């Protein structure tokens, strides 16, 4: 080896690296999928693969093409937000008239109870029942038409729908007060709750009936005897300025003194 020349061993190693490197680059070019990189760092064809999955749920509009009368009934009922397939199961095959059998007609209670069994976590106002106490021997559809369900009778207590509030008030200072003490509800409210909203208190004087200084605790406040209670009293003219009572106090669970 002479100085200034590239040593032999470097040429040998270099040649091997060159061959390995070139092979890798060539092989790489050969194997990159065709559509890779067309839309981004992925195979564009994969979008099509994802989009070509078979549809199972046809959607209620597909049902409406034949069953328009049932859909129309359902769409104006309490069950208007349900899709037909929520209860009848996936029906795309049926809609394409390929299925051998019709979609199932649910008959048992379990399907209804999936939504309507009482669970404390369900939203306030959502109609729920305790199955042992609510007509245990009868099928749901013997009283309620699933396509146009209405409560067959007035709920016994407000808690049936307003569970959260009733739970809160039950452990509060306002526990002795019935809901009707503050809210007057027309009977229709129990059947068409949103169409017939109950009244709510709207002025300070209402709370003042019990809490204003100098006012004697009523022995008969809309039918409730309150005299046994140690009710906090305030100077109504100065207390809280122009604020309404419920802007500071939560009326369903007023804070302890």
């Amino acid at each position, binding site marked *: 080896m002479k100085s200034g020349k590239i040593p032999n061993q470097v040429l040998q190693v270099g040649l091997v690296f060159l061959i390995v490197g070139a092979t890798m680059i060539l092989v790489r070019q050969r194997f990159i999928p065709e559509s890779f990189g067309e839309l*981004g760092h992925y*195979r564009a064809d*994969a979008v099509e693969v994802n989009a070509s999955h078979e*549809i199972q*749920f046809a959607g209620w509009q597909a049902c409406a093409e034949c069953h328009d009368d049932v859909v129309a009934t359902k769409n104006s009922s309490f069950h208007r937000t349900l*899709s037909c*397939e929520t209860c009848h199961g*996936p029906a795309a095959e049926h809609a394409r008239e390929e299925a051998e059998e019709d979609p199932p007609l649910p008959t048992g209670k379990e399907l209804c109870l999936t939504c309507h069994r009482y669970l404390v*976590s369900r*939203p306030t106002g959502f109609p729920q029942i305790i199955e042992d106490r609510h007509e245990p021997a009868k099928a749901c559809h013997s009283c309620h038409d699933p396509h146009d369900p209405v409560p067959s009778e007035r709920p016994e207590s407000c808690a049936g729908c307003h569970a959260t509030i009733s739970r809160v008030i039950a452990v509060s200072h306002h526990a002795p007060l019935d809901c009707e003490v503050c809210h007057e509800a027309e009977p229709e409210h129990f059947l068409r709750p949103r169409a017939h909203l109950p009244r709510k208190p709207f002025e300070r004087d209402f709370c003042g009936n019990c809490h204003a200084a100098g006012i004697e605790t009523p022995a008969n406040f809309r039918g409730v005897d309150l005299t046994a209670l140690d009710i906090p009293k305030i100077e109504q003219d100065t207390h809280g300025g122009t604020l309404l009572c419920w802007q500071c106090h939560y009326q369903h669970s007023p804070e302890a003194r």
Partner: protein
Amino acid sequence: MPKNYERREFLADLVKFPCATLLLGVSGPIKALASAGDEYQASEHHYAMGVQIEKCIGCGKCVEACKIENDVPMEPYYFRTWIERYIIYADGEVSVDSPNGGIDGFPPIESEKAILRTFFVPKLCNHCENPPCVQVCPVGATFKTQDGVILVDDDYCIGCRYCIQACPYGARFLDPRTHTAGKCTFCYHRITDGLLPACVEICPTQARIFGELDKLSTPLNRMMRQSNIQVLKAHMNTEPKVFYSDLDGEVR
């Protein structure tokens, strides 16, 4: 399913939401209408989902529908969507459960303790604008489409599961049959055909709202105008596209 489905759905929405008709002067939806019926153009869409916590009744129908629609393994370890139940007791204890993802609904609560708040939270892939799963995929087998949906390329995924580790929401799993990553696709095969995702279609209380993010006067935008909107784990900066209304601070 007819291809001009989207137009019909849109018209149906107009009837359902009268205020939307007032906003029809905006050109966006009209253009979208004009293109309906032609071949699907991914670049014209930008999908998102709204979830109204206050409407979810925890029935689990969405979980069931998702598994049926997308052929997700029925075993209780694989979910593209699931429901969690949160119970916040008066003493501050927080209890969360999701038996079998909530697919059969939820059992009554056993505890006798006083409850402060309790509610259901539907979960699914958040289709993040800034998805960590896509970032970490070594080969480009999971990706964000032009319409903003995060998909998996089953024929290319090597099954390394880095995406599963990277997802802060536990929204991914390894499909035991294909040995590739599985996840919610917003029912990509449905939405590109003008249908709603199966979970949205089937939800009996319309707790889930699917729609376009960049278009005005849609059910989704109406919800996002009128509610307090939260996303899950906002501090992760993943920019989720599943928007929750009235989400409790305890939800993770």
